[in-house]
């Protein structure tokens, strides 16, 4: 074979991988679309698709139906959009950490950042007596400060994945103790309030939450796209990465900041919904079967998991609305079991 043919073969392989990535994304988008439509349709008052569409376009067409519009535009749409955005954010936060720390078990809800947001939120609710927006801001700051603390504590001539993971686990334990402590000092109803926030729920979704989270993502996603190329080198180990000309420390820090940003904003909006961040990356990579790193797909998977979990949480039990965090927790458990069972074949948690 001539060199040109060889080169052509390489190009073909590359294009095949890219097309696999595209088709996976397309499939996910379709599933997402279906789930979204379902979210707008289902409920105590199932609203037929035509009416949904009419409501969606009512600001433009002027054809309004007060009650239907309210349900669609003020209740279901914000909730579905928030599920989408927060799921995508969690998914991205998770896969960035898992890729940087080279370990699928290392996601922000396990290595302490979610705990930081939780501890801050519980503090705001129980000690400061704050509600809603103020608590969200508190949670956000908690996540950022905890991430900063973890990074600084893990820094010693640079940051290794090993140290970040373990320091994060130590932090998580300490923050969990702080939360437990606050729980013993408060009145039962305050504790219940805090617990409700801790489990993570989309019940109180408002358009404003969507706008804030959406705005944050508008900033963070381009940053991520700019930084992601560095991963091509960093995935090969620091030495090889430097040999290829990547500025490892700076790229790593940048990516961590973006990941923390995603996690913090999403947590502030919906609470520390567990396992979406944990599950999205591995699922995305599984679907891609080695044809890509999986970042866009992880965002889509995260959005899908969040949306579907919320649908299940709302409609599974007849009279009860479960918080979405419970369903994602169950998903997490199933996922870990699946990880266990698929051990022999290609399972590598390292």
């Amino acid at each position, binding site marked *: 074979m001539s060199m040109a043919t060889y080169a052509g073969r390489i190009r073909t392989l590359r294009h095949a991988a890219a097309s696999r990535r595209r088709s996976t994304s397309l499939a996910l988008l379709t599933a997402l679309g279906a789930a979204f439509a379902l979210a707008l349709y289902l409920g105590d008052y199932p609203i037929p698709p035509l009416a949904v569409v009419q409501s969606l376009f009512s600001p433009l067409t002027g054809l309004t139906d007060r009650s239907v519009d309210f349900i669609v535009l003020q209740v279901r749409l914000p909730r579905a959009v928030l599920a989408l955005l927060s799921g995508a954010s969690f998914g991205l936060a998770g896969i960035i950490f898992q890729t940087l720390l080279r370990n699928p078990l290392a996601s922000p809800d396990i290595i302490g950042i979610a705990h930081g947001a939780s501890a801050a939120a519980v503090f705001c609710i129980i000690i400061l007596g704050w509600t809603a927006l103020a608590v969200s801001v508190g949670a956000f700051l908690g996540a950022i400060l905890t991430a900063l603390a973890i990074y600084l504590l893990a820094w010693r001539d640079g940051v290794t994945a090993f140290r970040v993971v373990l320091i994060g686990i130590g932090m998580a334990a300490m923050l969990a103790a702080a939360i437990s402590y606050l729980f013993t000092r408060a009145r039962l109803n305050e504790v219940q309030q805090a617990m409700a926030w801790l489990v993570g729920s989309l019940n109180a979704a408002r358009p404003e939450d969507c706008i804030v989270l959406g705005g944050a993502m508008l900033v963070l996603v381009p940053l991520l796209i700019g930084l992601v190329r560095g991963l091509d080198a960093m995935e090969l180990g620091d030495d090889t990465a430097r*040999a*290829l000309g990547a500025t490892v420390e700076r790229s790593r820090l940048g990516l961590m900041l973006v990941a923390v940003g995603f996690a913090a904003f999403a947590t502030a909006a919906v609470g520390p919904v567990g396992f979406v961040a944990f599950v999205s990356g591995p699922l995305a990579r599984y679907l891609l079967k080695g044809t890509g790193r999986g970042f866009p797909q992880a965002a889509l998977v995260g959005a899908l998991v969040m949306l579907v979990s919320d649908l299940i949480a709302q409609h599974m039990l007849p009279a009860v609305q479960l918080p979405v965090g419970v369903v994602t927790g169950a998903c997490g458990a199933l996922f870990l079991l699946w990880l266990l069972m698929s051990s022999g074949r290609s399972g590598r948690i390292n």
Partner: protein
Amino acid sequence: MIPAMSNKHQLLAAGLDLAYGDRQIVTGLSLTVPPGKLTVIVGANASGKSTLLRGLARLLTPTRGAVYLDGKPIHQMPTREVATLLGVLPQTPIAPDAIAVTDLVGRGRYPHQGWFRRWTTEDDAAVAEALNATDTADLAGRAVDELSGGQRQRVWIAMALAQDTQLLLLDEPTTYLDINHQVEVLDLLTDLVRQRGRTVVVVLHDLNLACRYADHIVAMKSGHIVAEGSPGDVMTEAVVADVFGMPSRIVRDPVSDTPMVVPIGRHHAGSLEGQAKRGVAVTY
């Protein structure tokens, strides 16, 4: 085939001190890497050979002295620029899960790409050539973690080749390879030097392969260079005894006409000398 270019790039170390934390590994080392030649660094374990290579490769900042690339201190040059001139294959590279061979080798093109200049035919050609040269073309679509140790090592070398740099530094690239693949890799590196005018520096464990292939040998001990020069000059019984603490016999390699080190362990110490004294011809 890319025509041979005369290699104008000069890599040298001057008064180099290299340390990990407070553990001093290399002290006051000066070395000029002969351009357009294959240089092999040998030495016992913990003699500092890998550390020296990492220092030359800009992976370790010297505590004193400096490494110069074309007269400029390498640590002051932008990383990207260095990566287009100098390629390194470290000892234990890490491959992400389930990455395909073409993908991994393609990563070698990283320094030549940018935000806007992505995959060009040149890149594909470089990858294809690298795969071809390391005899891994038939592994192209497979996942790296499914390959055997030797195959994986060759894929890594392909990645370093795809980087297409004038200078190439490799840290023990032949460790997990069968003898035939070891020789293949060293033949390949020799091709790079002779046919494409590259400068290659390799750390090797095997003294005899080092003697066969090296244009220039650097023998290290305890962070210092004990001897350097052509294999014929450097590889003497005295140097082997100094560097490895082991008596040996240097004979002529019948295949390559270079020195061949025949180690003398405890169990053979008597017999050889005895037979030599008795004037018996020792043949195998």
